[in-house]
């Protein structure tokens, strides 16, 4: 009895799933003509696109992945990759807004989930991958920033001064910016601290005392802004001699069975060449002796 019930239940679930699947697989977007030309109530700006990006990363990227990367979930039908020109050519600003507003099949409706502004921001973000999409204003990251670094050997402090160029191209202190400090490692960069610039644009950290350096204790420090969208990829590097010296032993420098041909073990070289030369010496001796046959003809 019980097992029969479970069987019916299971069958029911399978059928419902199948039904949903068949609907979602067969459904088509039905976008009314008038929405295709619909425009946002305000112009797209870099600020709004940035907001849209953070909303997108929370709500959309789990299925759609990062635009242009093709890392969307393998569903049927496949979630669109917004980085493709196919998508951008087919979908206007209004269409994108309509689709995320209404939803269809596996794609949920965000009508009541997101505010009107957020929906437009996401739309702007998605459309920002269209080369013809017009964005008003200036990219905030287009301001020119400058980092200068200095070090204090006594206190092992790394000091950095952040500046930006104003409209008259004068350098002015950049305050309230987060600066990140790294040490360059073999694979990637190791974060060693963050600091916020004061009103003079200065930030500093103390170099940690447990960093491994090269054989003389040198290490390369990399300093950049945390918010690259706002301040750009301005980077400054400095080599400090405060790290702990590490002496690396390269096993390939010694003579080993697994070494290259120049570092073959001595015993092997001696064995191999003495045997080869010894045997070939005898062979050549025999060949040379053949010339004596003629001389020995006279008894």
């Amino acid at each position, binding site marked *: 009895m019980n097992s029969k019930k479970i069987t019916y239940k299971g069958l029911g679930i399978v059928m419902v799933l199948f039904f949903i699947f068949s609907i979602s697989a067969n459904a088509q977007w039905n976008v009314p003509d008038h929405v295709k030309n619909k425009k946002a109530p305000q112009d797209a700006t870099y600020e709004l696109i940035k907001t849209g990006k953070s909303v997108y990363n929370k709500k959309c990227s789990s299925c759609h992945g990062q635009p242009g990367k093709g890392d969307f979930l393998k569903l049927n039908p496949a979630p669109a990759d917004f980085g493709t020109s196919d998508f951008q050519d087919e979908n206007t600003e209004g269409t994108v807004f309509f689709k995320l507003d209404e939803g269809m099949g596996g794609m949920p409706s965000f009508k009541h989930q997101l505010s009107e502004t957020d929906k437009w921001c996401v739309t702007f973000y998605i459309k920002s991958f269209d080369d013809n999409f017009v964005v008003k204003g200036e990219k905030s990251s287009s301001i020119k920033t400058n980092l200068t670094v200095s070090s204090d050997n006594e206190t092992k402090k790394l000091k950095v001064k952040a500046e930006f160029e104003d409209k008259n191209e004068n350098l002015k202190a950049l305050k309230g910016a987060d600066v990140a400090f790294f040490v360059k490692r073999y694979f990637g960069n190791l974060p060693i601290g963050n600091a916020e610039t004061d009103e003079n644009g200065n930030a500093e950290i103390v170099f940690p005392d447990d960093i491994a350096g090269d054989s003389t204790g040198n290490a390369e420090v990399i300093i950049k802004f945390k918010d690259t969208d706002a301040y750009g990829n301005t980077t400054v590097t400095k080599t400090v001699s405060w790290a702990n010296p590490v002496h690396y032993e390269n096993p390939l420098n010694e003579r080993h*069975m697994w070494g*290259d*041909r120049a570092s073959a073990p001595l015993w092997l070289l001696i064995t191999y060449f003495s045997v080869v030369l010894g045997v*070939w010496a*005898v*062979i050549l001796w*025999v060949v040379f002796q*053949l010339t004596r*046959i003629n001389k020995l003809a006279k*008894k």
Partner: protein
Amino acid sequence: MDKENTNENKKSLNQIVTDLTKPLKKHYGFRTWILFLIGIIMLGLFAYVIQLQKGLGVTAMRDYVSWGLYIASFIFFVATALIGMLISSVLGLIGYKWITPIARIAEMIAVGFALWAGLVIIFDMGRPDRFWHLFAYGRVQSPIVWDVTVVMTYVAISILLYLLPLIPDMPFLKKVMTDQPKWKQKMYHILSFGWVGSEGQYKLIKKLIRVLAVLIIPVALAIHTVTSWLFAMTPRVGWASTIFGPYYVTGAFVTGGAAVVIAMFIFSRDFRLRNYITDFHFDKMGKLMVLLMLVYLYFNLNEFIIPGYQQQRGEDHHIYALFQGQFALMFWLVQIGGMIIPIILLLFKKMRKPLPSLIIGIAVLIGAFFKRYIITIPTLMHPHLPIQNVPADFHTYWPTAFEWSITGMAIAGAVLVITILAKLFPIMPIWEIAHEEGITNEEMNEFTGNN
């Protein structure tokens, strides 16, 4: 010695020279045989040109089975070549007289197969034009460098060991082969190195042969031990075995012994030398084969019973594939048909007669060829990590027509070398046979006109 006795000996020497040089002259069916061999070689060459153009993709070798029929053939060729050392060197140094008529045959097999063993390796290379890299960039630590070294050394010593006992035969050839083309006579003259049969010359040539006969023993052991190390130095199931060296060497003697028995039969029939290679020699070779195969059986027992009993992880798959699985049919055919039944049969005197010996020899030789297949391929199909997510043809291996044709070319090529040598020079040392018949150096010199 009185005059009558000398006359009788002279007649005997005359008989020996006639018997042994007759097949070098006119020979019925020789041309057909050469054309047959060249036909096989041309087919293989055609296949090889396509392989050069299209790459090793025309073979069945893929990522897992990267050593296929070519490497299996290579071991087979090196193995067959080893018999020269056993018969003409070891048995000769011990002082066995019965090997005199077959020692040169063994040496011809050694030269033919050792020469082609080196070529078979090149057939297996995807970029043979880079062969010289081995010398320019090779590491002394690599068994492949050792292998190339010993193969070249063995070829050199084998050629010398073939050539040196030929020198005292040259005056006979110069005397008898006067109806032959000029280039042949010139070649006999050059290869005689001015031999006139003086006492000093005999002393020297015997010394040189003895030196080489001693030298070739460690070199021959090295060539096949190093060949086995190509496998045993690789930590793979079925290969990483400490007895692989002696296992290969004893297996090689069985292979070469079978090749010698087959060659003995063909030469004694086709060259009409039944009075020289007699039932006695087949009987001796049969007994020798039993001894060699019993030693080989002992190594086989060790090689399979220990992993079979332990059933270590990884080994178990391999042993199962050989005993009961994918390779079971070939494995048991080779082990029983190519070793155990021949041992039992050869224990009987009747089975050591020429014809039964030939049939058993062929069975042993075919078994020996596929034994090398069994050694090479199954291990490669049992890698340390499971084979998964690869194209279907990575899972299996069976040689393509290209591989069979090119291997056929190698076998035909080795046989062609032996055939050409047998047509240019007597297949038995005239002077040694004459010595055994009690003919003195003076009488031989008188015959050749070097008095």
